[in-house]
């Protein structure tokens, strides 16, 4: 299992469009991928699951993956967070 903690730095937080990008990307990996936010743990491949986190800017989230491509999955998803979901410069 691979885990990485990332900060949500885009102003709108994990809103619908960002969650759609994230779940779409997560679905391209074979590994089971979860997002852990405070006491909540949701399937990163579920758009609506991600939205239930109501995660806002300035907070941190842990990406957790287990499977054949776990390292690539975590690195790729973390990069999307670092790029602020390509919403901002």
């Amino acid at each position, binding site marked *: 299992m691979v885990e990485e903690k990332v900060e949500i730095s885009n102003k709108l937080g994990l809103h619908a*469009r960002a969650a759609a*990008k994230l779940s779409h990307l997560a679905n391209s990996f074979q590994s089971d991928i979860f997002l852990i936010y405070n006491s909540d743990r949701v399937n990163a491949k579920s758009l609506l699951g991600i939205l239930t986190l109501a995660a806002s800017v300035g907070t941190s989230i842990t990406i957790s993956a287990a499977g054949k491509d776990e390292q690539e999955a975590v690195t790729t998803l973390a990069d999307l967070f670092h790029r602020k979901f390509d919403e901002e410069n």
Partner: protein
Amino acid sequence: MNQKTAKPIRSLLITHGQLGLELKDIAEKILERNLDIETISILWGEDGSRILSKIEAFMKRHSDGPIVIFTDMFGGSPSNVCFPFISPDVEVITGINLPGLLKFLTYREKEIPFTELVQIIRKGAIDGINVMGEYLGEKSHGRRKS
């Protein structure tokens, strides 16, 4: 209605006024792709037979597979006009909202039975309704001012 969803299920959004068009437009923006959902906007005072004709035309065009019809409110005219079309291959989900529509769009290509799919959509729509104060209290995220 137990066939596997081997191909994307057709869908029709029937609503009062332009609500369906707006839902579709927002879903397209969120998912960043064009959606093959058809819409029927029922205008105030519109002749019921014209609406039925539009639904029948849709059914004829897509008679080769299962169909989900979404309407905005149980008991409203968009829902009531759909009753004659319900069959093992055609289901109607009333009271659709954005979470329910997104649930459908992210599950429609999965190989799951049609009957299961419609229940997943219904749950997605219902789960999307929350009282935020209660939700934040339950989650104890410390984001609620007390």
